[in-house]
């Protein structure tokens, strides 16, 4: 952990800030959420890594999807993901978001979350233990360091494909596209 490395802070404050201040939005889709309370309270204490739960996607930069994703939930996941400010990181928790898990042939559960939104990391297991969350967090740190946790850029770059996939499952979405076709993602930063 290089949290106390002042040199690094001066060099790249943004990256360091993202690393050590992960405001997490826990999306309690299924049984996985039961592992989260122990992880943020006394026993495991996620706050020592700078991970705290926040209430709305606007304040969050870590999106934790804990459990299977039904078609109906997917809509809300997408909406919440799009409302998060960038840079933002998604972590799928448990085997269900990875490939459907025990719901792999369910009529109403999507199998691969990363077909619809970009996912930066997975925590495998059914259920993963709270320690696994911290492993994921430390892993995410390395990814951020290396610049590989760039799901949000991927989403921006391939927004049309994601939107197509989303609409294939959900039908026409109620909200307008997040990124207009005319604006390339590099330009997005300068809007407003």
């Amino acid at each position, binding site marked *: 952990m290089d949290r106390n490395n002042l040199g690094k802070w001066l060099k790249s404050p943004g990256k360091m800030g993202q690393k050590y201040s992960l405001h997490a939005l826990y999306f309690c889709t299924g049984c996985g959420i039961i592992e989260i309370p122990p992880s943020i309270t006394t026993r495991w204490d996620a706050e020592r890594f700078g991970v705290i739960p926040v209430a709305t996607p606007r304040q969050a930069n870590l999106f934790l999807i804990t459990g299977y994703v039904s078609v109906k939930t997917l*809509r809300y996941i997408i909406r919440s993901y799009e409302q998060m400010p960038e840079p933002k990181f998604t972590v799928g928790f448990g085997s269900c978001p990875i490939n459907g898990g025990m719901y792999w042939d369910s*009529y*109403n559960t999507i199998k691969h979350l*990363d*077909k619809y939104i*970009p996912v930066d990391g997975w925590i495998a297991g059914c259920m993963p233990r709270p320690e696994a969350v911290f492993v994921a967090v430390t892993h995410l740190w390395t990814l951020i360091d290396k610049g590989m946790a760039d799901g949000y850029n991927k989403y921006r770059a391939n927004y049309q494909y994601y939107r197509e996939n989303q609409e294939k499952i959900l*039908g026409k979405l109620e909200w307008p596209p997040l990124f207009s076709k005319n604006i390339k993602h590099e330009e997005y930063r300068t809007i407003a």
Partner: protein
Amino acid sequence: MKNTGQLLKEKLLLSFEDIQAEVSDEHRLTVNCRKDTVITVLSFLNNSGYDHLALISCVDWIKDNVLELVYILTAYAEDKGKAKMNILVKTRITREKPGLHTVIPVFENAEPYERELHELYGIHFMGHPRLTPLFLEREYKIPPFRKDFDTRKYVQEVFDQIPFVEDKKAEK
């Protein structure tokens, strides 16, 4: 001395002709009736004090080609000293174009249950005020809870057909 279930069974048999009733244990009374008498039976039971419709469930007997609806009734106010009764009112309907009359006039809380059954089994409840989807986002040719709905095939057709974004990009 007869227990509550026995008494109720006799009362039912006296009142209705074409039903079968059976007391399986002291807490359970099963009543089989035709689909057009189910509402009168339910209202009879409602008036006899079994005024809570706990659930409507459905069983797909694909071999017999019938759907069996099970209305589970209990009583809010149970007499002390008497056993708590669950009454299962069962009725069978055909699997093709299944339909029967709604029981909302008797039990208002049947509304979501019937919507659910309509959605998952395709049963049409006549007289129901709004049979709109309750849980499902997508439309299914065969209602998904029927035995002949092939989930694996469905998943392959729908979810597995959606490509990963990387693949898609590569295609282009």
